[in-house]
């Protein structure tokens, strides 16, 4: 029976959370007590009448109910007096009309003393039951036992007069009653004082030393307590209590005291009620951040600063970047750039942080280094690696003979009796007709044949005309001849074989092509020049001659038979030299191919 009643009560309580009581006056509350007076005690019930008839028939568990006829007591009471009455909490539920209005004659019992004692659903606790007013209630509930009474007034001794459904024998009564400290006082919400609905309530509390537990024993009088929205007070001497009377609503209360950290709490003021909102303060502390730039100081635990970017705070309070050397043995870590280690002799650190064999390239520009077999570099466009160096890549295109126009290297040699024309084709001299229209000297543009020679004191200009030698220049002229072995100018002049179509190049990059008779001429600044002759099927040769201003200087250059089976470098290496020492060219002064040739010469 009790279980069913408890479950029913729980359901009612749950549903009652959604209900709302209406405003009542204190007299209206007491009127319910007056109506209930004289009715039977009825455990779990709450049903009364305003005409004081049918005072109840001891429904439930009251064998000694005083309202039963004496002949029918001890459990056999008939229902002639109706199923009316209530227990203590039923009376207060009815008197308070909680959670919502309910008729006096309707049996409704939504709350027990447990709820009145432990919840504050539609009522609040008074800070002290000395502050009780008419219509408030005193309740106790402990260990399954409980009682609640409806307070009306105090007598001259301060003892309360209450309405209560006391028990089976007395039923619901009005009497002076002894109240002990087992009880607390509670007050219904929405009580109208007089004709005006209350809108204010009391918020109070103590300021205490916060020990991070429930201990509030050390009070902090003198603390300033402020309420959000304005208003402040001082925690009083002794117990450090403070209070505000405020309009109902939620406020933030902040307590401040010198030497302590301020603290705040958000609490809700209940209309016509008293709510506690004690605030604990912790002592303020001067942080010791000496030697620390981040993290918590060891004294107060306050921040000494924060680290930015990729840095994190170390245990010693320093902002540090934590290197990520995972998978790396050397080089900088990718996070902080800090060293992950160094490599041994003969090793180098790769981009992925691994120690690898260090190539020994020296002056080697390309190809594989001799130690690690790794590449010493790649050659750029227009050049190829000759094993160790990048050299000009001949671009012969459709040429089968003569020199390529880029590197000046041979594109091949024509057969005996054939002439390599200006387009790099081998032509029969007899069939190739020189086209010297208007030209009296120099090479014709079609076959590269001579259009004539100027006298020594004249020079052939670009238009194929013989003109006076520019006084600021000198003329170098002569023949490319073939010699079996190096010889001087005289031996070259005496050579019987002259090489047609040979290219004569100066060490400044200037070049000329010899005609079918091996004749060439160059206009140059007056100085000493090294002339290099190249011809298909021959090893290069060179001669050194002095150019004289406004004059012509005869200067023969010899080429030499090429050695069979030799590579290009070897061919270069076996070239012959005659005349004066070579002149060092200015860097970048030559076209790439010629510069490379000049470099090869210099290294040799």
């Amino acid at each position, binding site marked *: 029976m009790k279980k069913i009643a408890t479950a029913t009560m729980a359901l009612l309580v749950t549903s009652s959370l959604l209900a709302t009581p209406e405003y009542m006056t204190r007299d209206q509350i007491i009127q319910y007590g007056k109506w209930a007076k004289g009715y039977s005690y009825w*455990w779990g019930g709450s049903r009364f009448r305003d005409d004081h008839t049918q005072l109840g028939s001891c429904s439930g568990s009251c064998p000694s109910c005083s309202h039963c006829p004496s002949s029918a007591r001890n459990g056999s009471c008939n229902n002639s007096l109706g199923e009316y009455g209530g227990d203590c909490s039923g009376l207060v539920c009815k008197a308070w009309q909680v959670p919502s209005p309910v008729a006096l004659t309707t049996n409704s019992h939504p709350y027990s003393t447990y709820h009145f004692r432990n919840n504050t659903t539609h009522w609040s606790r*008074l800070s002290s039951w000395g502050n009780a007013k008419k219509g408030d209630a005193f309740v106790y509930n402990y260990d399954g*036992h409980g009682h609640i009474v409806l307070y009306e007034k105090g007598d001259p001794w301060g003892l309360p007069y209450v309405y209560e459904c006391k*028990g089976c024998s007395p039923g619901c009564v009005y*009497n*002076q009653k002894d109240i002990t400290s087992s009880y607390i006082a509670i007050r219904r919400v929405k009580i109208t004082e007089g004709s005006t609905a209350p809108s204010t309530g009391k918020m109070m509390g103590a300021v205490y030393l916060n020990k991070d537990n429930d201990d509030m024993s050390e009070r902090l009088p003198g603390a300033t307590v402020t309420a959000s929205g304005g208003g402040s007070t001082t925690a009083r001497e002794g*117990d450090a209590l403070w209070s505000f009377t405020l309009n109902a609503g939620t406020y933030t209360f902040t307590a401040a005291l010198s030497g302590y950290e301020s603290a705040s709490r958000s609490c809700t003021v209940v209309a016509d009620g008293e709510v*506690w909102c004690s605030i604990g303060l912790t002592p303020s502390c001067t942080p010791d951040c000496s030697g620390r730039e981040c993290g918590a100081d060891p004294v107060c635990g306050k921040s000494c600063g924060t680290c930015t970017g990729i840095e994190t705070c170390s245990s010693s309070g320093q902002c540090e970047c934590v290197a990520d050397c995972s998978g790396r043995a050397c080089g900088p870590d990718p996070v902080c750039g800090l060293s992950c280690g160094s490599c041994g002799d003969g090793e180098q650190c790769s981009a992925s942080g691994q120690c690898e064999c260090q190539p020994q390239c020296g002056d080697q520009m390309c190809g594989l280094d001799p130690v690690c077999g790794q590449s010493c570099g790649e050659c750029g466009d227009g050049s190829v690696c000759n094993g160790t160096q990048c050299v000009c890549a001949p671009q012969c295109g459709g040429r089968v003979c003569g020199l390529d126009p880029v590197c000046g290297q041979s594109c091949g040699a024509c057969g005996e009796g054939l002439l390599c024309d200006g387009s790099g084709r081998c032509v029969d001299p007899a069939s190739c007709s020189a086209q010297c229209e208007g030209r009296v000297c120099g090479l014709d543009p079609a076959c590269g044949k001579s259009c004539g020679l100027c006298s020594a004191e004249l020079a052939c200009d670009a238009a194929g005309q013989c003109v006076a030698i520019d006084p600021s220049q000198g003329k170098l002229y002569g023949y490319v001849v073939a010699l079996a072995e190096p010889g001087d100018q005289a031996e070259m002049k005496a050579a019987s074989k002259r090489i047609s179509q040979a290219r004569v190049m100066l060490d400044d990059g200037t070049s000329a092509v010899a005609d079918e008779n091996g004749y060439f001429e160059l206009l140059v600044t007056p100085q000493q020049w090294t002339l290099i002759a190249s011809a298909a099927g021959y090893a290069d040769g060179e001669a050194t001659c002095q150019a004289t201003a406004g004059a012509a200087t005869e200067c023969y250059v010899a080429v030499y038979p090429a050695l069979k089976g030799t590579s290009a470098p070897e061919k270069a290496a076996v070239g012959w030299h005659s005349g004066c020492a070579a002149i060092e060219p200015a860097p970048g002064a030559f076209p790439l191919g010629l510069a490379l040739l000049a470099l090869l010469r210099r290294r040799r």
Partner: protein
Amino acid sequence: MKRLATTAIVIAIAAAIVAAVLLLDRGVRNAASVAAPGASPGASIAHGAAMAAAGTAVPVATADPRRVREIFKAPWGNKLGELGRDLPGEGSPQGPMSFVVDASGQAYVLDQVNSRLQIFKPGQPPRAIPLANDGYQDIALTSRDEVALLDRLVTKSVDFVDDRGQVRSSVPLAGEGIEETGSVTAMFAQDDGIWVEVQHSRLVRVASADGKPDPERPTVIGRFSYDGTLLLTAAVDGDNAAVVITKPVTDPLSPAGTLLARVPFAQRLSHLLALDSDLTGRIFLGAYLIQPKDDGSGEVIAFEQVVVLGRDGRELGRIALPPHTGPEETFRRIAVDSDGTVYQLGLDESGATLRGFSP
């Protein structure tokens, strides 16, 4: 939750005992080792007696343990020697409602929960007088050695019972001077009859000494002093004080009187517990004091004191008593004997203990 509540109550009881022992320890250190006269075997030692100057309770009996006597200690139960306690689920808890000590030192305890009266006499086993009614709330011994019992709420009468519990006569309470029987606050047996007090302010004689209804139902303002020369009244005065007013018994209906004393208290005065006097004219004012806890629980810490005033109103001292912190309703738990012994029927979880404190 229950465990918490249990713990809280245990702590509260322990704190009260410690507080009382501390008070006692200031001057009655040896009291703990001295069995009080009349104590039943195995009874606990008396504690909590203290007397002080105005405002603060200090030990009453210094080194004289005879000033604190345990008259009896009865566990809760329904056997002979036990006292009934009722803690219903949704109803008024109650313990023994009242008691009285006669001139021979016998204590009559109203064990209404067990529908009986138990009589404890030092050195003898207790005896019981069965009662037909479990609604009695006060007891008085008449000049004819009868027992008068007050039932404010059930039969609403004063019943006179003999030593077998038979109701020899029953006098209705309601009538002239008493409109509301629940407002009766005490009952006194005088030579001229039974007087009941209404609202702690006036007395109405409802019955003659032989137990017959008093057709006149005379009224006096205040309650009689022991010697019958004065009428005493007391009232709460503000939050922390009470006043004691006297007037000659020859002017019974005048509301005016002489302010004998204004008695301050260190804690908030919840209500008064007793107003009595002894043969020498000393006046005893019992008070129930409370101090709200600061934890927002709405709970209070209780104190009980008896302030002893001289005939001239000068405060002679205070007795700090163990406070009643249980939920049980009582009607009279402090009484004063003709020699000024203050009796307190103390209730705790184990049972009830009657102690006598000699100021």
